[in-house]
Protein backbone atom coordinates (compact mmCIF):
# COMPACT_ATOMS: atom_id res chain seq x y z
CA UNK A 1 0.00 0.00 0.00
CA UNK A 2 1.47 3.33 -1.01
CA UNK A 3 1.93 6.16 1.48
CA UNK A 4 -0.45 8.29 -0.53
CA UNK A 5 -3.11 5.60 -0.35
CA UNK A 6 -2.58 5.26 3.43
CA UNK A 7 -2.96 9.01 3.73
CA UNK A 8 -6.22 8.96 1.75
CA UNK A 9 -7.64 6.18 3.91
CA UNK A 10 -6.59 8.04 7.08
CA UNK A 11 -8.18 11.28 5.86
CA UNK A 12 -11.44 9.57 4.94
CA UNK A 13 -11.65 7.99 8.40
CA UNK A 14 -11.03 11.37 10.05
CA UNK A 15 -13.58 13.12 7.88
CA UNK A 16 -16.14 10.41 8.69
CA UNK A 17 -15.78 11.43 12.36
CA UNK A 18 -15.57 15.17 11.86
CA UNK A 19 -16.66 16.40 15.27
CA UNK A 20 -14.51 13.94 17.15
CA UNK A 21 -11.49 14.71 14.98
CA UNK A 22 -12.02 18.46 15.48
CA UNK A 23 -12.27 18.14 19.26
CA UNK A 24 -9.21 15.94 19.45
CA UNK A 25 -7.31 18.40 17.31
CA UNK A 26 -8.36 21.19 19.64
CA UNK A 27 -6.28 19.78 22.49
CA UNK A 28 -3.11 19.82 20.42
CA UNK A 29 -4.06 23.18 18.92
CA UNK A 30 -4.30 24.83 22.34
CA UNK A 31 -0.99 23.26 23.36
CA UNK A 32 0.90 24.50 20.33
CA UNK A 33 -0.74 27.90 20.53
CA UNK A 34 0.33 28.36 24.15
CA UNK A 35 3.89 27.28 23.43
CA UNK A 36 4.25 29.78 20.60
CA UNK A 37 2.49 32.59 22.46
CA UNK A 38 4.24 32.19 25.81
CA UNK A 39 7.67 31.79 24.26
CA UNK A 40 6.99 34.89 22.16
CA UNK A 41 6.12 36.88 25.27
CA UNK A 42 9.10 35.55 27.22
CA UNK A 43 11.43 36.27 24.36
CA UNK A 44 9.97 39.73 23.84
CA UNK A 45 10.45 40.54 27.52
CA UNK A 46 14.06 39.43 27.27
CA UNK A 47 14.71 41.65 24.27
CA UNK A 48 13.04 44.58 25.97
CA UNK A 49 14.95 44.30 29.21
CA UNK A 50 18.38 43.66 27.73
CA UNK A 51 17.66 46.56 25.37
CA UNK A 52 16.96 48.80 28.35
CA UNK A 53 20.23 47.79 29.98
CA UNK A 54 22.13 48.37 26.76
CA UNK A 55 20.61 51.86 26.68
CA UNK A 56 22.81 52.74 29.66
CA UNK A 57 25.83 52.59 27.41
CA UNK A 58 28.39 49.88 27.07
CA UNK A 59 31.15 51.74 28.92
CA UNK A 60 29.45 51.62 32.29
CA UNK A 61 30.76 49.60 35.22
CA UNK A 62 28.46 48.89 38.13
CA UNK A 63 29.90 48.47 41.61
CA UNK A 64 27.27 46.69 43.66
CA UNK A 65 27.18 45.29 47.18
CA UNK A 66 27.49 41.50 47.55
CA UNK A 67 29.62 38.96 45.74
CA UNK A 68 27.72 39.23 42.47
CA UNK A 69 25.70 36.07 42.92
CA UNK A 70 22.23 37.05 41.75
CA UNK A 71 20.70 34.03 43.42
CA UNK A 72 21.86 35.13 46.91
CA UNK A 73 19.86 37.27 49.29
CA UNK A 74 20.45 41.05 48.91
CA UNK A 75 23.47 42.22 50.83
CA UNK A 76 23.56 45.40 52.89
CA UNK A 77 25.79 47.92 51.25
CA UNK A 78 29.02 48.92 53.01
CA UNK A 79 29.93 51.65 50.51
CA UNK A 80 30.39 55.24 51.63
CA UNK A 81 31.05 58.50 49.85
CA UNK A 82 34.73 58.11 50.76
CA UNK A 83 34.85 55.11 48.43
CA UNK A 84 33.56 57.28 45.60
CA UNK A 85 36.19 59.93 46.28
CA UNK A 86 38.94 57.36 46.56
CA UNK A 87 37.97 55.75 43.24
CA UNK A 88 37.81 59.15 41.58
CA UNK A 89 41.35 59.89 42.74
CA UNK A 90 42.77 56.52 41.70
CA UNK A 91 41.15 56.15 38.30
CA UNK A 92 43.15 57.83 35.53
CA UNK A 93 41.78 60.35 33.08
CA UNK A 94 39.11 63.00 33.42
CA UNK A 95 37.23 63.66 36.65
CA UNK A 96 33.58 62.93 37.27
CA UNK A 97 33.78 59.43 35.89
CA UNK A 98 32.67 58.04 39.24
CA UNK A 99 29.25 58.51 40.74
CA UNK A 100 27.58 57.22 43.85
CA UNK A 101 23.88 56.67 44.28
CA UNK A 102 21.43 55.98 47.05
CA UNK A 103 17.83 55.00 46.36
CA UNK A 104 14.64 55.00 48.37
CA UNK A 105 10.91 55.47 48.06
CA UNK A 106 9.31 58.55 49.58
CA UNK A 107 6.08 60.46 49.27
CA UNK A 108 6.43 63.74 47.44
CA UNK A 109 3.96 66.58 47.78
CA UNK A 110 3.30 70.08 46.55
CA UNK A 111 0.21 72.27 46.79
CA UNK A 112 -2.04 69.43 47.91
CA UNK A 113 -0.86 67.02 45.21
CA UNK A 114 0.80 63.96 46.68
CA UNK A 115 2.45 60.92 45.11
CA UNK A 116 4.97 58.27 46.00
CA UNK A 117 8.10 58.25 43.91
CA UNK A 118 11.52 56.68 43.75
CA UNK A 119 14.05 59.07 45.20
CA UNK A 120 17.54 58.91 43.72
CA UNK A 121 20.38 60.57 45.55
CA UNK A 122 23.38 61.20 43.33
CA UNK A 123 26.83 62.71 43.49
CA UNK A 124 27.60 65.73 41.31
CA UNK A 125 28.72 63.58 38.38
CA UNK A 126 25.80 61.18 38.64
CA UNK A 127 23.73 62.43 35.70
CA UNK A 128 26.76 62.52 33.40
CA UNK A 129 27.82 59.02 34.36
CA UNK A 130 24.41 57.41 33.79
CA UNK A 131 23.81 59.58 30.69
CA UNK A 132 20.80 61.56 31.83
CA UNK A 133 20.23 65.25 31.31
CA UNK A 134 17.90 67.98 32.41
CA UNK A 135 15.34 69.46 30.06
CA UNK A 136 15.28 72.69 32.00
CA UNK A 137 17.26 74.05 34.95
CA UNK A 138 20.63 72.88 36.13
CA UNK A 139 21.97 69.62 37.54
CA UNK A 140 23.55 69.64 41.00
CA UNK A 141 26.88 71.21 41.53
CA UNK A 142 29.78 70.01 43.68
CA UNK A 143 28.83 72.57 46.29
CA UNK A 144 25.19 71.37 46.33
CA UNK A 145 26.51 67.92 47.21
CA UNK A 146 29.21 69.16 49.60
CA UNK A 147 26.75 71.25 51.64
CA UNK A 148 23.77 68.93 51.35
CA UNK A 149 21.69 71.67 49.81
CA UNK A 150 17.97 71.00 49.70
CA UNK A 151 17.41 71.14 45.95
CA UNK A 152 15.58 68.65 43.74
CA UNK A 153 15.31 67.68 40.07
CA UNK A 154 11.91 66.34 39.02
CA UNK A 155 11.26 63.51 36.59
CA UNK A 156 9.07 64.66 33.70
CA UNK A 157 6.00 62.74 34.88
CA UNK A 158 6.40 63.99 38.45
CA UNK A 159 6.61 67.59 37.21
CA UNK A 160 3.46 67.08 35.11
CA UNK A 161 1.55 65.73 38.06
CA UNK A 162 2.66 68.16 40.78
CA UNK A 163 2.65 71.28 38.65
CA UNK A 164 0.31 70.70 35.71
CA UNK A 165 0.75 73.44 33.13
CA UNK A 166 3.12 75.44 35.37
CA UNK A 167 6.85 75.98 35.57
CA UNK A 168 8.03 74.07 38.64
CA UNK A 169 11.45 75.71 38.77
CA UNK A 170 11.85 77.79 41.90
CA UNK A 171 8.82 76.15 43.56
CA UNK A 172 9.05 74.14 46.76
CA UNK A 173 8.06 70.51 47.30
CA UNK A 174 8.18 68.24 50.31
CA UNK A 175 10.06 64.96 50.02
CA UNK A 176 9.40 62.78 53.04
CA UNK A 177 9.18 65.51 55.65
CA UNK A 178 11.87 67.83 54.30
CA UNK A 179 11.23 70.76 51.98
CA UNK A 180 13.26 71.05 48.77
CA UNK A 181 13.50 73.73 46.10
CA UNK A 182 12.99 72.58 42.51
CA UNK A 183 16.02 73.52 40.39
CA UNK A 184 15.35 71.51 37.23
CA UNK A 185 13.16 69.08 35.29
CA UNK A 186 14.60 65.97 33.69
CA UNK A 187 14.44 65.08 30.02
CA UNK A 188 11.53 62.76 29.32
CA UNK A 189 12.67 59.13 28.87
CA UNK A 190 9.46 57.29 28.09
CA UNK A 191 8.40 54.22 29.97
CA UNK A 192 9.29 50.64 29.27
CA UNK A 193 7.18 47.62 30.12
CA UNK A 194 9.64 46.42 32.70
CA UNK A 195 11.80 48.02 35.34
CA UNK A 196 11.36 51.39 36.99
CA UNK A 197 9.68 54.27 35.22
CA UNK A 198 12.49 56.83 35.02
CA UNK A 199 10.05 59.69 34.50
CA UNK A 200 8.50 59.03 37.90
CA UNK A 201 11.69 59.64 39.89
CA UNK A 202 13.09 62.66 41.67
CA UNK A 203 16.83 63.39 42.08
CA UNK A 204 18.51 64.88 45.15
CA UNK A 205 22.12 65.64 45.98
CA UNK A 206 23.37 62.42 47.57
CA UNK A 207 24.16 64.05 50.91
CA UNK A 208 20.61 65.39 51.18
CA UNK A 209 19.23 61.98 50.28
CA UNK A 210 21.40 60.33 52.94
CA UNK A 211 20.01 62.72 55.52
CA UNK A 212 16.48 61.98 54.30
CA UNK A 213 17.06 58.22 54.53
CA UNK A 214 19.07 58.59 57.76
CA UNK A 215 22.05 56.64 56.43
CA UNK A 216 25.75 57.18 55.87
CA UNK A 217 25.98 54.40 53.30
CA UNK A 218 25.41 54.56 49.57
CA UNK A 219 23.78 51.82 47.51
CA UNK A 220 25.84 51.65 44.35
CA UNK A 221 28.78 53.19 42.55
CA UNK A 222 28.87 53.77 38.81
CA UNK A 223 32.05 54.21 36.81
CA UNK A 224 32.09 55.33 33.22
CA UNK A 225 35.15 54.05 31.35
CA UNK A 226 36.57 56.43 28.77
CA UNK A 227 36.22 53.70 26.14
CA UNK A 228 35.28 50.04 25.84
CA UNK A 229 38.96 49.24 25.45
CA UNK A 230 39.87 50.53 28.92
CA UNK A 231 36.94 48.91 30.70
CA UNK A 232 39.00 45.96 31.96
CA UNK A 233 41.80 48.22 33.20
CA UNK A 234 39.27 50.30 35.10
CA UNK A 235 37.74 47.19 36.57
CA UNK A 236 41.11 46.07 37.92
CA UNK A 237 41.79 49.47 39.50
CA UNK A 238 38.34 49.52 41.11
CA UNK A 239 38.81 46.05 42.53
CA UNK A 240 42.29 46.90 43.87
CA UNK A 241 41.11 50.10 45.51
CA UNK A 242 38.03 48.57 47.10
CA UNK A 243 39.89 45.48 48.32
CA UNK A 244 42.02 47.77 50.47
CA UNK A 245 38.89 49.14 52.10
CA UNK A 246 36.34 46.27 52.11
CA UNK A 247 36.04 42.49 52.33
CA UNK A 248 36.15 40.88 48.87
CA UNK A 249 32.60 39.49 49.35
CA UNK A 250 31.24 42.94 50.16
CA UNK A 251 31.36 44.22 46.58
CA UNK A 252 31.39 43.15 42.99
CA UNK A 253 32.19 45.00 39.80
CA UNK A 254 29.94 44.23 36.84
CA UNK A 255 30.05 45.48 33.30
CA UNK A 256 26.94 45.97 31.23
CA UNK A 257 27.72 42.69 29.44
CA UNK A 258 27.86 40.89 32.80
CA UNK A 259 24.46 42.21 33.77
CA UNK A 260 22.93 41.49 30.37
CA UNK A 261 24.38 38.00 30.63
CA UNK A 262 22.92 37.36 34.05
CA UNK A 263 19.57 39.03 33.39
CA UNK A 264 19.39 37.40 29.96
CA UNK A 265 20.03 34.01 31.51
CA UNK A 266 17.32 34.54 34.08
CA UNK A 267 14.84 35.60 31.41
CA UNK A 268 15.86 32.71 29.20
CA UNK A 269 15.07 30.35 32.06
CA UNK A 270 11.76 32.15 32.53
CA UNK A 271 11.00 31.63 28.84
CA UNK A 272 11.87 27.97 29.07
CA UNK A 273 9.67 27.56 32.14
CA UNK A 274 6.80 29.17 30.23
CA UNK A 275 7.48 26.86 27.29
CA UNK A 276 7.54 23.87 29.61
CA UNK A 277 4.20 24.81 31.16
CA UNK A 278 2.70 25.23 27.70
CA UNK A 279 4.38 21.95 26.74
CA UNK A 280 2.39 20.20 29.45
CA UNK A 281 -0.85 21.27 27.80
CA UNK A 282 0.54 19.96 24.52
CA UNK A 283 1.27 16.68 26.25
CA UNK A 284 -2.29 16.54 27.58
CA UNK A 285 -3.49 17.10 24.03
CA UNK A 286 -1.34 14.20 22.93
CA UNK A 287 -2.87 11.95 25.57
CA UNK A 288 -6.28 12.94 24.18
CA UNK A 289 -5.16 11.89 20.71
CA UNK A 290 -3.95 8.57 22.05
CA UNK A 291 -7.22 8.03 23.86
CA UNK A 292 -9.37 8.78 20.84
CA UNK A 293 -7.22 6.60 18.62
CA UNK A 294 -7.68 3.69 21.03
CA UNK A 295 -11.44 4.20 20.91
CA UNK A 296 -11.25 4.37 17.15
CA UNK A 297 -9.28 1.12 16.94
CA UNK A 298 -11.76 -0.74 19.09
CA UNK A 299 -14.71 0.71 17.16
CA UNK A 300 -13.18 -0.33 13.87
CA UNK A 301 -12.04 -3.79 14.89
CA UNK A 302 -14.25 -5.42 12.24
CA UNK A 303 -12.95 -3.04 9.60
CA UNK A 304 -9.40 -3.96 10.56
CA UNK A 305 -10.27 -7.66 10.37
CA UNK A 306 -11.82 -7.16 6.95
CA UNK A 307 -8.85 -5.20 5.65
CA UNK A 308 -6.53 -7.93 6.85
CA UNK A 309 -8.66 -10.61 5.18
CA UNK A 310 -8.47 -8.60 1.96
CA UNK A 311 -4.69 -8.55 2.12
CA UNK A 312 -3.68 -5.63 4.34
CA UNK A 313 -0.39 -6.36 6.08
CA UNK A 314 0.26 -5.54 9.72
CA UNK A 315 2.33 -2.57 8.65
CA UNK A 316 -0.43 -1.26 6.35
CA UNK A 317 -2.86 -1.14 9.26
CA UNK A 318 -0.28 0.31 11.68
CA UNK A 319 0.67 2.99 9.20
CA UNK A 320 -2.94 3.92 8.55
CA UNK A 321 -3.66 4.55 12.24
CA UNK A 322 -0.32 6.25 12.82
CA UNK A 323 -1.05 8.61 9.94
CA UNK A 324 -4.48 9.35 11.37
CA UNK A 325 -2.89 10.37 14.66
CA UNK A 326 -0.24 12.45 12.93
CA UNK A 327 -2.73 14.20 10.70
CA UNK A 328 -4.78 15.09 13.79
CA UNK A 329 -1.82 16.54 15.63
CA UNK A 330 -0.28 18.05 12.49
CA UNK A 331 -3.45 20.01 11.68
CA UNK A 332 -3.79 21.01 15.34
CA UNK A 333 -0.16 22.12 15.29
CA UNK A 334 -0.51 24.18 12.13
CA UNK A 335 -3.67 25.98 13.27
CA UNK A 336 -2.28 26.43 16.78
CA UNK A 337 0.86 27.92 15.30
CA UNK A 338 -1.06 30.46 13.24
CA UNK A 339 -3.27 31.38 16.20
CA UNK A 340 -0.22 31.63 18.47
CA UNK A 341 1.53 34.01 16.08
CA UNK A 342 -1.66 36.01 15.62
CA UNK A 343 -2.22 36.33 19.37
CA UNK A 344 1.42 37.28 19.92
CA UNK A 345 0.99 40.11 17.39
CA UNK A 346 -2.23 41.17 19.13
CA UNK A 347 -0.54 41.20 22.52
CA UNK A 348 2.30 43.28 21.10
CA UNK A 349 -0.29 45.68 19.69
CA UNK A 350 -2.41 46.22 22.78
CA UNK A 351 -0.19 45.48 25.77
CA UNK A 352 3.10 47.07 26.87
CA UNK A 353 4.66 43.59 26.64
CA UNK A 354 6.40 43.14 23.32
CA UNK A 355 6.01 39.66 21.84
CA UNK A 356 8.60 38.17 19.55
CA UNK A 357 7.79 34.98 17.65
CA UNK A 358 11.01 33.05 17.29
CA UNK A 359 11.80 30.49 14.64
CA UNK A 360 12.88 27.95 17.23
CA UNK A 361 9.56 28.05 19.06
CA UNK A 362 7.69 27.66 15.76
CA UNK A 363 9.79 24.68 14.67
CA UNK A 364 9.68 23.23 18.17
CA UNK A 365 5.90 23.49 18.40
CA UNK A 366 5.35 21.95 14.95
CA UNK A 367 7.95 19.26 15.46
CA UNK A 368 6.61 18.42 18.89
CA UNK A 369 3.02 18.24 17.68
CA UNK A 370 3.91 15.77 14.92
CA UNK A 371 6.14 13.88 17.33
CA UNK A 372 3.27 13.81 19.83
CA UNK A 373 1.12 12.24 17.11
CA UNK A 374 3.81 9.69 16.45
CA UNK A 375 4.44 8.98 20.11
CA UNK A 376 0.82 8.75 21.18
CA UNK A 377 -0.31 7.16 17.93
CA UNK A 378 2.13 4.27 18.15
CA UNK A 379 0.33 2.44 20.93
CA UNK A 380 -3.13 2.42 19.29
CA UNK A 381 -1.63 1.82 15.84
CA UNK A 382 0.38 -1.18 16.98
CA UNK A 383 -2.62 -2.55 18.75
CA UNK A 384 -4.62 -2.22 15.52
CA UNK A 385 -1.89 -3.82 13.42
CA UNK A 386 -1.56 -6.79 15.72
CA UNK A 387 -5.24 -7.69 15.78
CA UNK A 388 -5.89 -11.28 14.82
CA UNK A 389 -8.02 -11.18 11.66
CA UNK A 390 -10.16 -14.14 12.76
CA UNK A 391 -10.99 -12.52 16.09
CA UNK A 392 -11.42 -9.10 14.54
CA UNK A 393 -13.87 -10.30 11.90
CA UNK A 394 -15.98 -12.00 14.55
CA UNK A 395 -15.99 -8.85 16.74
CA UNK A 396 -19.21 -6.89 16.97
Amino acid sequence: MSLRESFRVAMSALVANRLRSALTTLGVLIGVMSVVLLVAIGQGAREEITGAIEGLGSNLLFVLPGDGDFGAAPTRSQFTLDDVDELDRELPGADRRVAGSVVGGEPVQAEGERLTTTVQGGTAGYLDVVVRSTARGQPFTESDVATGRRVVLLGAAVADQLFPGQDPIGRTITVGSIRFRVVGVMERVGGTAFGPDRDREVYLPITSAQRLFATTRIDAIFVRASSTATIDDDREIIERVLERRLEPEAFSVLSQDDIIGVVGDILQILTLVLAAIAGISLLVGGVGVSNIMLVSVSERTREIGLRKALGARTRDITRQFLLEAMVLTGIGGAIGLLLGIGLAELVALFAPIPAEVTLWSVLLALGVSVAVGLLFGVLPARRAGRLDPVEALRHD
Partner: protein
Amino acid sequence: MTDRPVLLEAIDVSRIYRLGRDVEVPALKGVSFTVEQGDHVAIVGSSGSGKSTLLNLLGALDRPTSGEVRYDGRDVQTLSDTELAELRNRRIGFVFQSFHLLPRLSAVDNVVLPLIYRPGGRRERRQRAIAALTSVGLGDRLDHRPTELSGGQQQRVAIARAVVTEPALVLADEPTGNLDTRTGEEIMALLEQLHAERDTALVVITHEAEIAARAARAIELRDGLIVGTAEGDA
Protein backbone atom coordinates in the same frame (compact mmCIF):
# COMPACT_ATOMS: atom_id res chain seq x y z
CA MET B 1 -11.18 -33.56 -12.34
CA THR B 2 -8.01 -35.29 -11.25
CA ASP B 3 -6.11 -34.04 -14.30
CA ARG B 4 -6.32 -30.45 -13.05
CA PRO B 5 -3.49 -28.94 -10.97
CA VAL B 6 -4.03 -28.86 -7.21
CA LEU B 7 -4.70 -25.42 -5.79
CA LEU B 8 -5.16 -26.22 -2.14
CA GLU B 9 -4.31 -29.23 -0.03
CA ALA B 10 -5.31 -29.96 3.54
CA ILE B 11 -3.27 -32.79 5.01
CA ASP B 12 -4.35 -34.18 8.36
CA VAL B 13 -5.23 -30.71 9.60
CA SER B 14 -6.17 -30.19 13.20
CA ARG B 15 -6.77 -27.03 15.14
CA ILE B 16 -6.96 -26.89 18.91
CA TYR B 17 -8.07 -23.73 20.74
CA ARG B 18 -6.70 -23.07 24.18
CA LEU B 19 -9.16 -21.48 26.55
CA GLY B 20 -7.42 -20.54 29.75
CA ARG B 21 -4.50 -22.53 31.03
CA ASP B 22 -5.69 -26.12 30.94
CA VAL B 23 -8.78 -26.20 28.77
CA GLU B 24 -8.18 -27.32 25.20
CA VAL B 25 -10.98 -27.40 22.66
CA PRO B 26 -10.21 -29.43 19.54
CA ALA B 27 -12.18 -27.84 16.69
CA LEU B 28 -10.66 -29.92 13.90
CA LYS B 29 -9.22 -33.37 14.51
CA GLY B 30 -7.32 -34.36 11.37
CA VAL B 31 -8.96 -33.35 8.12
CA SER B 32 -7.56 -34.09 4.65
CA PHE B 33 -8.86 -33.10 1.23
CA THR B 34 -7.78 -31.24 -1.89
CA VAL B 35 -9.25 -28.43 -3.97
CA GLU B 36 -8.19 -28.31 -7.59
CA GLN B 37 -8.12 -25.26 -9.82
CA GLY B 38 -11.61 -24.43 -10.98
CA ASP B 39 -13.11 -26.86 -8.48
CA HIS B 40 -16.51 -26.35 -6.82
CA VAL B 41 -16.62 -27.73 -3.30
CA ALA B 42 -19.18 -27.40 -0.54
CA ILE B 43 -18.23 -27.87 3.08
CA VAL B 44 -21.31 -28.84 5.02
CA GLY B 45 -21.86 -29.10 8.70
CA SER B 46 -23.99 -27.89 11.55
CA SER B 47 -22.72 -25.28 13.97
CA GLY B 48 -19.92 -26.68 16.11
CA SER B 49 -18.83 -29.05 13.36
CA GLY B 50 -15.61 -27.12 12.84
CA LYS B 51 -16.53 -25.55 9.52
CA SER B 52 -15.78 -21.99 10.62
CA THR B 53 -12.37 -23.13 11.85
CA LEU B 54 -11.77 -24.80 8.51
CA LEU B 55 -12.82 -21.62 6.70
CA ASN B 56 -10.23 -19.61 8.65
CA LEU B 57 -7.54 -22.14 7.74
CA LEU B 58 -8.52 -22.30 4.07
CA GLY B 59 -8.66 -18.52 4.00
CA ALA B 60 -5.08 -18.30 5.29
CA LEU B 61 -6.37 -16.25 8.22
CA ASP B 62 -5.13 -18.83 10.71
CA ARG B 63 -2.54 -21.60 10.94
CA PRO B 64 -3.28 -25.23 11.89
CA THR B 65 -2.12 -26.66 15.22
CA SER B 66 -0.81 -29.70 13.36
CA GLY B 67 -0.97 -30.96 9.80
CA GLU B 68 -0.44 -28.86 6.70
CA VAL B 69 -2.50 -26.47 4.63
CA ARG B 70 -0.75 -26.07 1.28
CA TYR B 71 -1.46 -23.36 -1.23
CA ASP B 72 0.19 -23.88 -4.61
CA GLY B 73 2.38 -26.43 -2.84
CA ARG B 74 3.50 -23.97 -0.14
CA ASP B 75 2.78 -24.83 3.49
CA VAL B 76 1.09 -21.83 5.15
CA GLN B 77 2.81 -22.80 8.40
CA THR B 78 6.09 -21.67 6.87
CA LEU B 79 4.77 -18.31 5.68
CA SER B 80 5.17 -15.07 7.63
CA ASP B 81 2.18 -12.86 8.46
CA THR B 82 3.14 -10.59 5.60
CA GLU B 83 3.33 -13.51 3.17
CA LEU B 84 -0.06 -14.73 4.37
CA ALA B 85 -1.50 -11.26 3.77
CA GLU B 86 -0.12 -11.31 0.25
CA LEU B 87 -1.49 -14.82 -0.31
CA ARG B 88 -4.96 -13.68 0.79
CA ASN B 89 -4.72 -10.62 -1.39
CA ARG B 90 -3.61 -12.43 -4.55
CA ARG B 91 -5.20 -15.86 -4.40
CA ILE B 92 -8.35 -15.67 -2.26
CA GLY B 93 -11.63 -13.76 -2.46
CA PHE B 94 -13.85 -13.79 0.62
CA VAL B 95 -17.65 -13.64 0.68
CA PHE B 96 -19.07 -13.42 4.20
CA GLN B 97 -22.50 -14.17 5.59
CA SER B 98 -22.84 -10.63 6.94
CA PHE B 99 -21.32 -9.00 3.83
CA HIS B 100 -18.69 -7.01 5.78
CA LEU B 101 -18.95 -3.87 3.70
CA LEU B 102 -17.54 -0.61 5.10
CA PRO B 103 -20.61 1.58 5.63
CA ARG B 104 -18.91 4.92 4.98
CA LEU B 105 -17.65 3.87 1.55
CA SER B 106 -19.61 3.77 -1.70
CA ALA B 107 -20.11 0.47 -3.54
CA VAL B 108 -17.25 1.17 -5.89
CA ASP B 109 -14.89 2.18 -3.05
CA ASN B 110 -15.78 -1.01 -1.18
CA VAL B 111 -14.85 -3.03 -4.26
CA VAL B 112 -11.60 -1.07 -4.68
CA LEU B 113 -10.56 -2.01 -1.13
CA PRO B 114 -8.51 -5.20 -1.84
CA LEU B 115 -6.81 -3.48 -4.76
CA ILE B 116 -5.26 -0.75 -2.60
CA TYR B 117 -3.10 -3.40 -0.94
CA ARG B 118 -1.31 -4.19 -4.18
CA PRO B 119 0.55 -1.96 -6.65
CA GLY B 120 -1.44 -0.09 -9.26
CA GLY B 121 -2.86 3.31 -10.12
CA ARG B 122 -6.09 4.75 -8.78
CA ARG B 123 -7.79 5.06 -12.14
CA GLU B 124 -7.05 1.48 -13.08
CA ARG B 125 -8.36 0.27 -9.71
CA ARG B 126 -11.57 2.17 -10.17
CA GLN B 127 -12.04 0.80 -13.67
CA ARG B 128 -11.58 -2.75 -12.45
CA ALA B 129 -14.03 -2.16 -9.61
CA ILE B 130 -16.61 -0.75 -12.03
CA ALA B 131 -16.14 -3.78 -14.29
CA ALA B 132 -16.57 -6.13 -11.34
CA LEU B 133 -19.72 -4.32 -10.15
CA THR B 134 -21.12 -4.42 -13.69
CA SER B 135 -20.49 -8.17 -13.86
CA VAL B 136 -22.63 -8.68 -10.73
CA GLY B 137 -25.39 -6.51 -12.19
CA LEU B 138 -24.77 -3.36 -10.14
CA GLY B 139 -23.33 -1.15 -12.88
CA ASP B 140 -26.00 1.43 -12.01
CA ARG B 141 -25.34 1.45 -8.24
CA LEU B 142 -21.68 2.48 -8.19
CA ASP B 143 -21.97 5.42 -5.81
CA HIS B 144 -24.60 3.98 -3.48
CA ARG B 145 -23.62 3.35 0.10
CA PRO B 146 -24.27 -0.09 1.62
CA THR B 147 -27.18 1.32 3.66
CA GLU B 148 -28.86 2.41 0.41
CA LEU B 149 -28.75 -1.13 -1.00
CA SER B 150 -30.89 -4.21 -0.32
CA GLY B 151 -29.35 -7.28 1.33
CA GLY B 152 -29.03 -9.05 -2.01
CA GLN B 153 -27.38 -6.01 -3.56
CA GLN B 154 -24.97 -5.71 -0.64
CA GLN B 155 -23.94 -9.32 -1.09
CA ARG B 156 -23.43 -8.64 -4.79
CA VAL B 157 -21.08 -5.78 -3.89
CA ALA B 158 -19.23 -8.21 -1.61
CA ILE B 159 -18.99 -10.73 -4.45
CA ALA B 160 -17.66 -8.04 -6.77
CA ARG B 161 -15.06 -7.23 -4.10
CA ALA B 162 -14.12 -10.95 -3.93
CA VAL B 163 -13.63 -11.36 -7.68
CA VAL B 164 -12.10 -7.95 -8.51
CA THR B 165 -8.64 -9.27 -7.64
CA GLU B 166 -9.12 -12.28 -10.00
CA PRO B 167 -8.40 -14.79 -7.26
CA ALA B 168 -7.79 -18.50 -7.77
CA LEU B 169 -10.33 -19.28 -5.04
CA VAL B 170 -13.55 -17.68 -3.88
CA LEU B 171 -14.29 -18.68 -0.31
CA ALA B 172 -17.95 -18.10 0.56
CA ASP B 173 -19.00 -18.47 4.19
CA GLU B 174 -22.78 -19.03 4.41
CA PRO B 175 -23.27 -16.52 1.55
CA THR B 176 -27.06 -16.86 1.66
CA GLY B 177 -27.39 -17.03 5.45
CA ASN B 178 -28.73 -13.46 5.81
CA LEU B 179 -30.93 -13.52 2.69
CA ASP B 180 -34.40 -14.74 1.85
CA THR B 181 -34.75 -17.89 -0.26
CA ARG B 182 -35.25 -16.19 -3.60
CA THR B 183 -32.42 -13.72 -3.17
CA GLY B 184 -30.24 -16.55 -1.83
CA GLU B 185 -30.96 -18.51 -4.98
CA GLU B 186 -29.92 -15.51 -7.11
CA ILE B 187 -26.69 -15.08 -5.14
CA MET B 188 -25.80 -18.76 -5.52
CA ALA B 189 -26.52 -18.56 -9.24
CA LEU B 190 -24.25 -15.52 -9.50
CA LEU B 191 -21.42 -17.20 -7.59
CA GLU B 192 -21.71 -20.29 -9.80
CA GLN B 193 -21.86 -18.21 -12.96
CA LEU B 194 -18.68 -16.29 -12.06
CA HIS B 195 -17.01 -19.57 -11.08
CA ALA B 196 -17.86 -21.08 -14.46
CA GLU B 197 -16.96 -17.98 -16.50
CA ARG B 198 -13.66 -17.29 -14.80
CA ASP B 199 -12.62 -20.84 -13.94
CA THR B 200 -12.21 -19.74 -10.33
CA ALA B 201 -12.38 -22.45 -7.67
CA LEU B 202 -15.43 -21.95 -5.45
CA VAL B 203 -15.61 -23.25 -1.88
CA VAL B 204 -18.93 -22.69 -0.17
CA ILE B 205 -19.32 -23.28 3.52
CA THR B 206 -22.91 -23.93 4.50
CA HIS B 207 -25.21 -25.80 6.79
CA GLU B 208 -27.88 -26.18 4.10
CA ALA B 209 -27.96 -29.51 2.27
CA GLU B 210 -29.67 -27.89 -0.74
CA ILE B 211 -26.79 -25.50 -1.31
CA ALA B 212 -24.26 -28.28 -0.71
CA ALA B 213 -25.96 -30.38 -3.37
CA ARG B 214 -25.22 -27.74 -6.02
CA ALA B 215 -21.45 -28.27 -5.68
CA ALA B 216 -19.39 -30.80 -7.61
CA ARG B 217 -18.37 -32.25 -4.29
CA ALA B 218 -19.73 -31.88 -0.79
CA ILE B 219 -17.53 -32.56 2.20
CA GLU B 220 -19.50 -33.19 5.37
CA LEU B 221 -17.97 -32.24 8.68
CA ARG B 222 -19.10 -33.38 12.08
CA ASP B 223 -17.31 -32.81 15.38
CA GLY B 224 -14.12 -31.80 13.63
CA LEU B 225 -13.90 -34.82 11.35
CA ILE B 226 -14.90 -35.49 7.74
CA VAL B 227 -17.78 -37.96 7.91
CA GLY B 228 -18.56 -38.19 4.21
CA THR B 229 -17.87 -36.89 0.72
CA ALA B 230 -20.63 -36.80 -1.84
CA GLU B 231 -20.34 -36.16 -5.59
CA GLY B 232 -22.98 -33.55 -6.45
CA ASP B 233 -25.20 -32.95 -9.47
CA ALA B 234 -22.92 -30.42 -11.16
